[in-house]
């Protein structure tokens, strides 16, 4: 691990000192008048005050959304599509600001927010603007004079609970299809990263009609739960972990509404021996593919947190992989050139460290890293972890549980059968990576791995128009694809007889 030292004086907070909720097109103080301190994980210091809302604010947001929903649901696809395109334009024009906000809020490196999070978020609105314009209903000819028409209709008012690992991108993944489909939204950002979404809301406030987008901040228990339990939402979308995912489904059963869930993974990244056949650009790319576990400090649901290396190439491959991992530049994530920043919170850092402890107890060998990172100066009060490679076997807890940090657990496999068994020996099935120069191997593994997204000879790409979602306990639904529109729409069937004659039954 390399360290880049920076003085922080040159970094000015992009935020206002206080954010209210965004309800009915206005910034509205929380009913109870309470705020909570939002800190940046970069230094652990306070950056601003955020509304600490409760059920009363959720009700206000639902009032505003319900007031707006009929008119919004009737807007033409062209109008809605144009508004999404405007949102994308405004975000793009303010990309530096939003990327800076995301870095301050979450602790991730500015080079990632500038090059990935924000461009992807912008593109997401454009993608769904396009999908909406191209979406068609269907018409089925039942017989010579009976026709079944199928129309897409919005669900109405939907609830969305956003995680803290990609605060803006995850909000946009959920907002773009919901708005495109003609729904009004009440969105609850994560309390660990509540501020960047408010800057986004400020920027786009005038584009959408009042009440179409409502953002209510606060704690999960006080604000998220009343949203999830509300009989006034027609659908709830959630990204997070399994116990809360079950509770969200449980609450949804009380109101008989649909849910979409994304609940994480323990993604295998498989390297076959032909990766090392030549020391060329492809080999270099494969080594980078291994080090992708450190992207976003490992706080990605699809983090390639299990690396499976064919035993024939283990030494050769790992020598390069360790060297590349140790070349990761840690430091103040606001500084250009820093590759890895802070974990999102102290509790997250402590959880990662507790897994390193479990791994050591289980006999995992620490190949590099294995501890918190001390970066000096004001960063000492931030939450940093060294990129870490553990070696062990697939039954260890560090191979089976999501650590959500820059930690990869490495093991070897003998042959294809062995690799497939290890890859699928997990309770999750969100992502996977396959690295081989052999197209047949790639195809077999692409189809054989029980995961919703299998990257072949690449990793951590998230383009719109490639479906993203989980098998097994990793969730329900597919995001980043036009099929998500269906998750936010009703199907109206109109069955029409064009025959003037009676049936003759009565």
């Amino acid at each position, binding site marked *: 691990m390399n360290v880049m030292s920076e003085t922080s004086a040159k970094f000015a907070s992009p935020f206002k000192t206080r954010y209210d909720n965004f309800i009915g097109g206005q910034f509205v103080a929380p009913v109870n008048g309470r705020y909570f301190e939002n800190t940046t994980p970069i230094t652990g210091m306070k950056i601003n005050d955020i509304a600490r809302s409760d059920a009363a604010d959720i009700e206000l947001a639902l009032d505003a959304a319900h007031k707006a929903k009929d008119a919004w649901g009737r807007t033409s696809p062209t109008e809605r599509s144009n508004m999404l395109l405007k949102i994308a334009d405004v975000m793009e024009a303010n990309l530096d600001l939003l990327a800076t906000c995301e870095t301050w809020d979450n602790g991730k490196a500015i080079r990632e927010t500038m090059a990935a999070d924000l461009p992807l978020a912008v593109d997401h609105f454009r993608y769904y603007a396009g999908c909406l314009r191209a979406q068609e209903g269907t018409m089925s000819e039942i017989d010579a004079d009976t026709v079944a028409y199928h129309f897409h209709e919005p669900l109405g008012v939907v609830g969305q609970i956003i995680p803290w690992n990609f605060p803006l991108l995850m909000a946009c993944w959920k907002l773009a299809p919901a708005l495109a489909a003609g729904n009004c939204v009440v969105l609850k950002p994560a309390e660990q990263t509540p501020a960047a979404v408010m800057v986004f809301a400020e920027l786009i406030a005038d584009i959408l009609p009042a009440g179409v987008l409502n953002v209510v901040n606060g704690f999960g228990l006080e604000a998220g739960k009343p949203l999830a339990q509300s009989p006034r939402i027609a659908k709830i979308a959630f990204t997070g*972990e399994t116990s809360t995912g079950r509770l969200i489904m449980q609450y949804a059963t009380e109101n008989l509404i649909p849910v979409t869930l994304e609940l994480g993974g323990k993604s295998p990244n498989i390297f076959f021996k032909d990766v090392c056949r030549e020391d060329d650009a492809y080999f270099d790319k494969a080594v980078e593919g291994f080090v992708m576990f450190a992207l976003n400090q490992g706080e990605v649901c699809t983090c390639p947190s299990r690396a499976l290396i064919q035993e024939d190439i283990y030494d050769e491959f790992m020598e390069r992989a360790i060297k590349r991992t140790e070349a990761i530049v840690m430091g103040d994530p606001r500084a250009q050139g820093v590759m890895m920043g802070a974990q999102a919170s102290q509790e997250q850092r402590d959880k990662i460290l*507790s897994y390193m402890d479990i791994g050591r107890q289980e006999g995992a060998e620490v190949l590099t890293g294995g501890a918190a990172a001390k970066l000096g100066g004001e960063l000492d009060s931030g939450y940093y972890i060294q990129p870490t490679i553990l070696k062990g076997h697939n039954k260890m807890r560090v191979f089976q549980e999501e650590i959500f940090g820059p930690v990869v657990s490495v093991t070897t496999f003998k042959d294809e059968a062995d690799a497939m068994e290890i890859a699928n020996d997990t*309770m999750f099935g969100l992502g996977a990576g396959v690295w081989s120069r052999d197209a047949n191997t790639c195809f077999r593994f692409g189809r054989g791995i029980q995961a919703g997204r299998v990257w072949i000879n690449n990793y951590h790409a998230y383009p719109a128009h490639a479906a993203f979602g989980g098998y097994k306990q990793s969730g329900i639904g597919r995001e980043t694809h036009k099929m998500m529109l269906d998750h936010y729409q009703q199907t109206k069937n109109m069955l029409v007889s064009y025959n003037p004659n009676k049936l003759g039954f009565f």
Partner: protein
Amino acid sequence: MKPDRVTATPAALDLLAAIRADHGPVMFHQSGGCCDGSAPMCYAVGEFKLGTQDILLGDVEGAEVYISAPQFEVWKHSQLVLDVTKGRGGMFSLDSGRALRFLSRAKLFTPDDLRALGL
């Protein structure tokens, strides 16, 4: 003698007592998955619907601690040590919004422990 599958640090017991004072009887469910996953969630008794795929690990001063069956499979050789850390996450967990929240640590069972547990 069978070892306990769950123990708690004094700080965890203090937080549990504070939560009980506000909310009454509670239970825990060990979560898995991303974000706030791999953390113990604390709910009012009856809030979280337990099912046939939940395993009772034990209790902490009467508060029952559960884990899902697939997760138990990978946990069963370790003891859950309920501890606390600074933080305010936890989604719908009753520690949400306090200065401290629960954290799961682990202690590996010894060979004698494993034999006593029938493993």
